[in-house]
């Protein structure tokens, strides 16, 4: 029961192992999601980041059992409180969906039915899962809308989706998702269609959910800023595969995969000096059909060299500031010269039992929680830490001297995209 206090962090809420989603195309099975694994603890917020086509939404849809195109093959395992979601019959999935796992979508206009009031739609979901009278259901709806910060909730419940602003619609959507107090909320680009000031309100609301409702959140986004502000753990997807995963603070301070580093570097800074040109990543992500043999990022990577191109793509290996844990085992945590103090809880981070938080209070040697699917850490030449004040981002090849032969410094950002 979600209302009860989670007993111990021992059993994570959701354990996904080697999730694959393959679609048939031209006589082959094309993996859209390729061996994605992650663990989501109770009251944790996990960010799934990636560009369009990276498989982040497909992952979420697969977890919800919402993919039923002909010929699609879903393999791997997704244990939700010990129950296998992959291959679960629709009948049992229907009992989970809405009650245990709820989802909110990018566009609340299309996610609501236009012909019923939003109150009617929220009531319906409550009554589908619980034996309540209409009046009781409506009372809960109004309470939920009020808790989501909807002004005049009783009136708003009687309105149709088109009568509400985008921000209010998204609040109503979240109210509907939370109506049966789900343990897991999957939010697929919940703020992408919203203005920044409204986005800030919705992100604050999502951050508050775990303390008020005890929910875990799987947040899907393409915006690194949203991840940095919201998520405890981050999973970077590239072309259907996990490129990097780790605690958000460690991953942002010390990206282990060149893609993560380059992605962070290509975001124009709002403060500090304005670069003449942005360190852009050349080209575009490969289509699933044209994914290269080895590392999918290799054609765009500044650090690409022979081992990157070989057939099995690089596995996830420990990286980041704790990658060299054995050597640093005797060193004190304080010796790690990084801006983020380890024991300071982040604002709004109230969960004590969550594995991510617990991991942060453990000694450095036990915290090799950051992994990158890249050959660099294994070769002993990890990326340099990303420091706030050094002007040209770490994505630029000249930032490190000991890197493998960088690609010829092409005028990367203006070159034609490769898969033309």
């Amino acid at each position, binding site marked *: 029961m979600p209302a009860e206090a989670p007993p111990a962090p021992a059993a994570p809420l959701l354990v996904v192992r080697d999730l694959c989603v393959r679609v048939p195309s031209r006589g082959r099975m094309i993996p859209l999601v390729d061996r994605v694994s992650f663990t989501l603890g109770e009251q944790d917020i996990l960010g799934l980041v990636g560009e369009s086509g990276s498989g982040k939404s497909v992952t979420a849809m697969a977890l919800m059992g919402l993919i039923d195109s002909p010929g699609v093959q879903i393999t791997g395992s997704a244990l939700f409180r010990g129950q296998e979601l992959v291959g679960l019959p629709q009948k049992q999935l229907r009992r989970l969906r809405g009650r245990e796992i709820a989802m909110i979508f990018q566009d609340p206009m299309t996610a609501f039915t236009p012909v019923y009031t939003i109150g009617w739609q929220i009531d319906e979901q409550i009554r589908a899962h619980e034996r309540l009278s209409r009046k009781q259901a409506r009372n809960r709806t109004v309470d939920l809308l009020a808790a989501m910060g909807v002004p005049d909730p009783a009136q708003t419940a009687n309105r149709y989706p088109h009568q509400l602003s985008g921000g209010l619609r998204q609040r109503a959507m979240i109210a509907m998702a939370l109506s049966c107090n789900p343990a897991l909320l999957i939010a697929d680009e919940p703020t992408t269609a919203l203005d920044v000031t409204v986005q800030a309100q919705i992100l604050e609301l999502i951050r508050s959910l775990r303390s008020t409702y005890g929910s875990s959140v799987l947040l899907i986004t393409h915006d690194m800023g949203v991840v940095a502000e919201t998520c405890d753990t981050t999973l970077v997807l590239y072309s259907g595969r996990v490129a990097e995963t780790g605690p958000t603070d460690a991953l942002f301070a010390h990206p282990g995969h060149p893609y993560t580093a380059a992605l962070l570097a290509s975001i124009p800074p709002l403060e500090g000096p*304005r670069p*003449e040109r942005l360190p852009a990543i050349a080209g575009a992500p490969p289509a699933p059909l044209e994914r290269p043999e080895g590392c999918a990022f290799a054609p765009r990577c500044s650090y690409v060299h022979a081992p990157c191109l070989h057939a099995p793509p690089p596995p996830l290996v420990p990286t980041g500031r704790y990658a060299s844990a054995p050597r640093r085992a005797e060193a004190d945590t304080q010796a790690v010269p990084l801006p983020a103090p380890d024991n300071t809880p982040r604002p709004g981070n109230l969960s004590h039992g969550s594995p991510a938080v617990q991991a942060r209070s453990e000694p450095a040697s036990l915290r090799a929680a950051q992994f990158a699917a890249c050959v660099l850490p294994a070769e002993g030449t990890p990326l340099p830490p990303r420091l706030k004040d050094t002007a040209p981002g770490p994505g630029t090849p000249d930032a490190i001297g000991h890197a493998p032969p960088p690609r010829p410094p092409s005028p990367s950002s*203006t070159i034609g995209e490769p898969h033309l």
Partner: protein
Amino acid sequence: MTRPSAPVPKTATEPQSSASASASASASASASASATPLLEVRDIRKTYHLPRGQTLKAVDGVSLSVMPGEVLGLVGESGSGKSTLGRCLLRLTDVSSGQIVFEGQDITHLGERAMRPLRQRMQMVFQDSYASLNPRRRIGDLLAEPLRVHPGPDGRKRSHAAITARLHELMELVSLPLSALERYAHEFSGGQRQRINIARALALSPRLIVADEPVSALDVSVQAQIVNLFTDLQTRLGLTYVFVAHDLAVVRQISTRVAVMYLGVVVELGETDAVLHHPAHPYTAALTAAVPRPEVGAPRAAPLGGDIPSPIARPAGCRFHTRCPAAQERCKVEDPALRPVSQGHFVACHFPLTDD
């Protein structure tokens, strides 16, 4: 089946050199920052009449000027009127009142025929790169159309060879391979399609480009490429941009000056970093504070409450007073005018913020 582009003609170099000469000439003209603005609008308004006698004032009295060679960023949330203003600047939408002066000429009431020669010098790039390209025509054909419609610099119809040469030049400018000319829009990624749209806007060597959210539909990694392309083209061809976007970081990267819009009016205008780092209007301050920074533990301000009000029922007095943390009685009745707070920095607020 007629294919627009034949094998590379030998005459390709000649028009190219003349084009680059004119480009460098305009670049040097912009460098000497003349005092006459390239484009000036005075108190323009655009009102839409809705059923039941309601009116929507999308643009409600905007005056600003765009100097040659500068990049003016227009920022604001959806419903602020930034896109409508962008369209009004090029007379793609007719204004209800006010005056638009382009290169010293009042174009507010020019007819379509009189506008046509001017259209060569002002072009637009739209957000949706796919919807902007006819899916049934080859890229080369699409790009050649403006060159066929408008006469060449000598006043005569452009020859087939001149058009082909210009197409090749355009592909080089936006870093696309020549083979792209033979393809259709659906064969390209979003970033490449936006390059094609930029190439089409450049075809007639315009002086002014209004870009309406040109990078917001692109992935982050591709967005940086297109922002760089805009910057490169500007330095190379001496272009002037009006860059409409909601992403403050992108606008900061590219703009010389920024105009912040709220409910149809400009509430703050000034040099980019002056406006974004030392905002005088509480709305600008809230807007910059709300942008999520890609830094863990970055200081976070309390978000602004509420939504942007409907432009149909805009609040009396200062438009922002319903959401403003510093609103006072005066703000509810008196609409503040845009006034200078420092050299080149204007704000429409009764109680502008100061740094200390």
